[in-house]
């Protein structure tokens, strides 16, 4: 590694919930670490090889996305560690945690080591692998959890393939406690989901699409909470989407259980109404829900009941998406649109700036036990600089990800990532 040049970020609005900070100031980076923070104009320009004028911008701890699919190894036609992390930094993320449903599945120390080594040579941001709970995501036997943690896995999840066997999930939670990693649950009862492809209700019946009822999520969230109570293993609910499941979580948190929750930007912005027209870029699991659910989810981000905003960045190729709605793959790309989509909720005063930054920085960092998500002196300089007022349109040529399965093409946004810095290096500039 060549030496990291020193950088001075001047006159930005520094927002760092890890220190309870919201202030105008300068930030100095040396040797890849944050070495000084002071009032605007107080840090001498002569100390830095490069100066970034952040006047009018927000300077935040580097954003962390704990739920992405990088598709490598095995599904490189959709995304690679390189393209996925390039998209991530363009979206303001300096760390991502990638799900285990690659080919082969990340269910052994060897696959974990491959991802880690590949990230070293091709990633432009930090990559933290998530290991499978069960071998092959088949829900039959425990994966080699200890070995994967030794190679760098920060959490466990069979994302996309809910562990239906409650006995096995209980044992996974028990076992994971020895290694100090949380279990992330894709909480849907697969039998109740059946062949459902959208939220069940009058609209699914109108469109003639098989429904996936909210109850499928509610049941599984209730089960995970029951198992958490039994085992005391930290459980994180991925992409929670229903009002009633939030009520379950509230009771669990009130009881002091180690349960955390994430919401994805699309569940905070879109309702099932988008499915009219059968555009497969509105097909995801869990499905887009009702206006009521969206409102409840937004309030839960503001109240802190939802801990983390995470994208579930799920790249898919044309062959996966330009097909019949029933046959289309679930999911959408998300790392480049997460900031502007959810920032809109800040602009509308639905979520406070402080809560918003917290849910994208220190809270996800703590969840995975990462020493990032903060601008404290002495820490690695992972920094995201935003222009909150910049208006722009997402055109197809701006998409960095290898896949273009976004329902937000041609959407007009307010708020744009200007600079992304990882370990003191500028990895993205707009």
């Amino acid at each position, binding site marked *: 590694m060549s030496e990291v040049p020193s950088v001075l970020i001047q006159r930005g609005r520094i927002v760092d919930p890890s220190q309870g900070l919201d202030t105008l100031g300068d930030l100095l980076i040396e040797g890849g670490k944050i070495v000084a923070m002071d009032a605007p104009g107080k840090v001498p320009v002569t100390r830095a090889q490069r100066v970034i004028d952040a006047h009018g911008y927000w300077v935040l701890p580097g954003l962390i996305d704990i739920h992405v699919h990088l598709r490598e190894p095995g599904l490189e036609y959709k995304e690679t560690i390189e393209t996925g992390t390039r998209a991530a930094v363009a979206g303001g993320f300096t760390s991502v945690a990638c799900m285990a449903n690659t080919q082969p599945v990340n269910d052994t120390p060897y696959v974990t080591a491959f991802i880690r080594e590949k990230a070293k040579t091709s990633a432009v941001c930090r990559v933290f692998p998530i290991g499978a709970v069960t071998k092959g995501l088949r829900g039959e036997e425990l994966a080699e959890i200890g070995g994967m943690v030794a190679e760098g896995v920060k959490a466990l999840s069979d994302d996309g393939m809910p562990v239906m066997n409650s006995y096995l999930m209980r044992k996974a939670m028990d076992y994971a406690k020895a290694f100090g990693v949380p279990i992330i649950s894709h909480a849907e009862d697969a039998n109740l989901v059946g062949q459902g492809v959208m939220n069940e209700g*009058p609209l699914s019946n109108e469109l003639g699409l098989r429904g996936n009822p909210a109850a499928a999520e509610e049941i599984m969230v209730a089960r995970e909470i029951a198992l958490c109570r039994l085992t005391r293993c930290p459980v994180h609910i991925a992409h929670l989407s229903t009002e009633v499941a939030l009520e379950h979580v509230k009771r669990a948190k009130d009881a002091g259980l180690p349960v955390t929750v994430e919401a994805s930007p699309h569940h905070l912005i879109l309702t099932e109404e988008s499915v009219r*027209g059968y555009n497969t870029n509105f097909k995801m699991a869990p499905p887009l829900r009702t206006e009521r659910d969206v409102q409840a989810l937004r309030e839960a981000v503001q109240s802190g009941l939802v801990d983390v905003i995470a994208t579930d960045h799920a790249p898919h190729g044309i062959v996966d998406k330009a097909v019949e709605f029933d046959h289309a793959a679930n999911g959408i790309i998300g790392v480049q649109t997460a900031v502007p989509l959810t920032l809109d909720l800040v602009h509308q005063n639905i979520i406070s700036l402080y809560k918003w930054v917290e849910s994208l920085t220190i809270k996800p960092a703590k969840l995975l036990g990462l020493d990032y998500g903060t601008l404290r002196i002495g820490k690695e300089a992972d920094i995201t600089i935003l222009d909150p007022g910049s208006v722009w349109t997402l055109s197809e040529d701006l998409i960095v990800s290898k896949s273009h399965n976004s329902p937000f093409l041609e959407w007009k946004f307010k708020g744009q990532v200007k600079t992304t810095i990882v370990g003191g290096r500028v990895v993205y500039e707009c």
Partner: protein
Amino acid sequence: MVRHLLAASELEASEIRYILQVAKYFAPYVSRGETIPLLQGKTVVNLFFENSTRTRTSFELAARRLGGGTLNFASTGSSVQKGETLIDTAKNIQAMRAHCLVVRHSSAGSPTFLSQNISVPVVNAGDGFHEHPTQGLLDAFTIEDRLGSIAGKRVVILGDIAHSRVARSNIYILRKLGASVAVCGPPTLLPPLSKSLGVDYAYRPEEVLGEADVVMALRIQLERQNRMQIPSAGEYTRFWGLSSERAKLLKKDAIILHPGPINRGVELDPEVADSPRSVILGQVSNGVLVRMAVLGWVCNPQGLEEWLARGGHRV
């Protein structure tokens, strides 16, 4: 703008009345064996991804009676399983200079998806559990033909509503034409429909048959059914089948429709199916007329207008 027929939910009441009226005007020409040359030099492609005999044949006859050529493209199972995507299949057929695609597919929304990706009219001939708009139109035609009008009539749709595209299309059309509709069947097969549709629910036929002017018995799709929805065909027949006994509850002039093919002895007692109340075969003949009207309306709207004007027909 290319005109499609994708869903009855998208049709205005005035458009429904127009199509039914045109079908009525076509009737005498068809019985005299005359061609109405609205599709001369055009080819209608029946793109069927699901088995069908009567609907496909009906569209084929309709196209020919308008002077058009037809081409049948049948493929069971999904296009994905064949390794060719639905878009590729459709674009290939369009490249063969088809002028209209009549599409049947087991996945809801497939005709809509196709219409967004090709430049010729698409007619939905049944998509999954979504809609079957020409069936709805021909049922409306049949009811009007037998009962004079639809407004104010009570229609009971009996059977598997959840998996019926026929039920959905009928509900939209009949409601738009002023009928009141009740759906009746086992609760496992009665989905929650939008309240705005104004449809009544009943679990037992005895609750609604007495008020019906029209009973539409739906095919119980035994092949798609599993024992988690209905315990057995016998139990269905016992509680929901339109038996001679239950038919006695009907008003004197009430009629019985069925989209076919009938499971005789399951949802419909053979005696009832062949009784004077039954208009099932009339539905089949009317199907051709209505599909002629639809094909003319989407493929050659201007020609249709001119034909109507020439014949002094006013719509």
